[in-house]
């Protein structure tokens, strides 16, 4: 965090991408990623989120984690806009393999193909993987 603070003081905005590849409730990765995204956003960095492979399941509508006594964190994705986190990229091929469509997602996203996703990763200053 001290590094991020220095960045802010220098007015040096870096591009951070959070790469989400895990389904939401079988492990803690998805919830932890979301916590770190909110921290990064608080430091006024250029934050984007990528959802590919099983990570696309995190954005599915109508999740009710209370059914398994877990924190229902999916609605938090709707709050990202308030933190000026507006770049959410979802991989087209990952959706198709899993029988998901864009209109089943909880927030508006930009659906991109695999090649574009790879290019977006390459454009970043920092990539954090979950």
């Amino acid at each position: 965090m001290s590094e991020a603070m220095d960045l802010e003081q220098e007015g040096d905005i870096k591009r951070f991408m959070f790469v989400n590849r895990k389904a939401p409730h079988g492990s803690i990765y998805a919830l932890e990623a979301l916590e770190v995204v909110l921290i990064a956003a608080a430091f006024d960095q250029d934050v984007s989120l990528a959802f590919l492979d099983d990570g696309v399941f995190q954005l599915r509508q109508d999740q009710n984690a209370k059914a398994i006594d877990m924190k229902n964190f999916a609605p938090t994705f709707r709050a990202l806009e308030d933190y000026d986190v507006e770049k959410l990229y979802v991989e087209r091929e990952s959706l198709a393999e899993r029988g998901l469509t864009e209109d089943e997602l909880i927030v508006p996203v930009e659906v991109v193909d695999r090649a574009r996703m790879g290019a977006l990763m390459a454009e970043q200053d920092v990539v954090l993987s979950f």
Partner: protein
Amino acid sequence: MLHTVNKSPWQTPNLDACLAHLGNERLLLIEDGVYAAVARSDAAGKLEAPARDGRVYALGPDLEARGIDTAQLAEGIEVVDYSGFVQLVAEHGPHQAWL
């Protein structure tokens, strides 16, 4: 006997390993394993034969947690609750968990 799979079919090959050993026994999908039960996914086809025989189950609370409506499930897959899970173990034991 009863087999359970708790991982997404895209994350690990556990579902394939289980199905290769399933024979005429029963399979219950739990936790991230339930994603395989969605009809439009490219994993559901793997379950077609045992589901047709009524030998594939999915745990309801895990479907609900993940936003999967029972109407989206592949044909023949039966939804059970926690007491149904217990009943399956009691009636069809032993239980092999493909972790």
